[in-house]
């Protein structure tokens, strides 16, 4: 498949850029942050996104979706990465809808996917239990009880946890990876407590405690971990698309600053040392672009390379976004470290995105293991 987006995808990207420029520039995130907004996102904007179909792109037509595919959804992420837009798109659509579609039974899909497509349901994934990404180290327990299960444990870094209607909780019914299963938990249920955390990127994250919480198994027992793994690879690619947008925006702003700012009587962009560092960043970003488009296509094609591609992409994008956001601040000089200038927001978002679903250390190591060394 040609490594370019088609006309329809381009149109979607253009319309996303337009909406986000008007409705969700970086200043919107600043406002959410400074007002300590209780929701951490703009529900009206979220509704507009749903009206534009963004919440339905990866959902099959049978469940009220558009079945447009992940390449298109990736274009939206890239544009949201540029504007640092806070919304439940990643938690609900990339993670929630994907895992329900992969693992859920028909009834579960029927009850949840149309609501996600309409933008009326926010879904959060409760996965992590330690400070570092580790999907196999699950100690939250799930014990069969009557028709359902009872869950107990503690989850950290639950993205959009405090605004979710439903949680998909990863819990253990037995030892080993096969003993790890997925459960649907209503956010209002007894025994569940959700504590919002204030993060560096001013986005939503929560710590969730479950004490004998009633839950419904998502899909079949024994199949949860495989679905979780595939969903994580898909979500890593989506997040990489967002990070690609973020690094491109930070880079372009920096190049613009280098052209505009004068020191010692000349534009600082005329200093060769900065030029070469800019050219290096350009090169790394070019590589990231290729990995992201290839990986997005791999989702839609259900390619057997999905795992390796997701791993490579998150690793390379993670490494590059650190380089680019650090250089962006350094090249902005004194103004770059003030809160008034927006460039710092990109660095902060980069750090949290880096941690999400495995940082570049995690994925470098994983890639070596996938290759048998």
């Amino acid at each position: 498949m040609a490594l370019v987006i088609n006309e329809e995808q381009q149109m979607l990207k253009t319309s996303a850029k337009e909406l986000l420029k008007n409705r969700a520039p970086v200043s919107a995130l600043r406002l959410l942050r400074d007002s300590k907004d209780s929701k951490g996102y703009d529900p009206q904007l979220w509704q507009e996104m749903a009206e534009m179909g963004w919440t339905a792109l990866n959902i099959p037509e049978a469940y009220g979706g558009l079945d447009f595919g992940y390449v298109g959804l990736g274009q939206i992420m890239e544009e949201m990465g540029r504007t640092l837009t806070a919304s439940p798109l990643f938690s609900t659509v990339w993670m929630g809808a994907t895992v329900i579609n992969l693992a859920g039974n028909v009834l579960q899909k029927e009850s949840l996917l149309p609501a996600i497509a309409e933008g009326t349901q926010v879904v959060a994934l409760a996965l992590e239990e330690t400070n570092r990404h580790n999907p196999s180290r699950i100690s939250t327990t799930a014990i069969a009880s009557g028709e359902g299960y009872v869950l107990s444990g503690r989850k950290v870094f639950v993205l959009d946890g405090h605004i979710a209607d439903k949680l998909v909780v990863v819990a253990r019914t037995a030892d080993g990876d096969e003993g790890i299963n997925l459960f649907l938990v209503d956010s209002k249920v007894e025994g569940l407590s959700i504590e919002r955390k204030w993060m560096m990127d001013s986005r939503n994250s929560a710590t969730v405690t479950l004490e004998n919480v009633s839950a419904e198994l998502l899909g079949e027992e024994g199949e949860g971990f495989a679905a979780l793994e595939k969903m994580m690879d898909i979500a890593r690619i989506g997040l990489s698309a967002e990070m690609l947008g973020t690094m491109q925006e930070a880079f372009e702003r920096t190049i613009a600053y280098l052209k505009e700012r004068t020191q010692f009587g000349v534009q600082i962009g005329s200093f060769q040392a900065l030029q070469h560092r800019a050219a290096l960043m350009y090169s790394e970003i070019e590589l990231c672009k290729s990995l992201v488009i290839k990986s997005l296509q791999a989702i839609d094609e259900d390619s057997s390379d999905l795992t390796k591609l997701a791993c490579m992409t998150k690793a390379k994008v993670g490494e590059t976004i650190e380089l680019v956001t650090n250089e962006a601040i350094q090249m902005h000089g004194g103004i770059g470290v003030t809160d008034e200038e927006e460039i710092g927001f990109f660095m902060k978002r980069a750090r949290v995105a880096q941690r999400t679903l495995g940082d570049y250390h995690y994925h470098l190591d994983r890639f070596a293991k996938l290759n048998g060394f």
Partner: protein
Amino acid sequence: MSTTTQTDIKTFRAETRAWLEENCPQSMRSPYRSAEDIFWGGSKPEFSSEDQKLWFERMRDKGWTAPAWPKKYGGGGLNKAEYKVFKEEMARINARPPLFSFGLMMLGPALLYFGSEEQKMKYIPEICRGEIWWCQGYSEPGSGSDLASLQTRAEDMGDHFLINGQKIWTSYADQADKIFCLVRTNPKAPKHTGISFVLIDMNQEGVTTRPIKLISGKSPFCETFFDNAKTPKENLVGTLNDGWTIAKYLLTHERSGIGLMPATQSLQDMAIEEIGLENGVLADPILRPQITRWMINEAALKLTTERTMDEAKAGQSPGAKSAFFKYYGTELNKEQSEMRVVIKGFEGVEWGEDYNDGKLARGMCRTKGNSIEGGTSEVMLNIISKRILGLPSR
């Protein structure tokens, strides 16, 4: 200065040790843990504890806030050998410096070197007694690394200068009593010339300040505005239009000040505690060599400081080497603070609601400024390549 025999030194060491043992409160015998642990002095002094006050007053009365400065200006009058012993004895019990200020760090050295006798007698004793909080007015919006492009003007009005303009990155300007300041006194002269070094009272109409918020949150930095502010002409330090000489002298002083910050827990211990070992090695195989390289570089940088001092003692001039220390130290500091965030994972990127939360993330953000303030890394590399390596300009 008197010369000291080995016996004198032994006696001095014994006396100092005894005095410190008796006078340094237990709570003052540990490294600074937070900004509150530093006493800055000033006309409205704020102590964070009784011990801190006691310790400051005892040391002040002995002249040991500035142990090596001449006694007649309020210093301790220690000679080199004594000062070395003094520092060793302080370090032995981890005694905190009783007073920290830009007066001690910067203005004092500059006055001792460039000031008139009147200025020394007037200002240095105040600095030693911690009575005046001085801040520094160098950078301006738009000047950045190109410090010599500064625009703040001081007009000669006969008996005083009339000052108009704006300074940025003036640390603690909102709390300071006075400012030492670079101003343009000859607007027609080329950049480096026509600049003078003057002292200005902050407590006057015509001087206003505004704090700057950083990416790490609140900060000591301010913007300072001069709107027809005044200062008597005797507050000119050094020669008119030759302030650049003093500025360069002080920049070198400042650079050697910004270096590695003390960390509460070593990177290595933090990583072992948080990440753990597998088969005896750190469970993050990518972080492991990064930490190792950092440890080696940090140790090597410390040894290089030591070697440079030893070489200076042996008569080799360090030249422009402070640029290297500034560059390397701040880059190492940025690295270690990034690694701490990585080690702590999700917790590392927590920000919290209050400035005292999210120390790792905020600390990392703060270090981003290290390679910008006091001369950017790029300027340091320029200095190394031109002044040390002698590479040509274009």
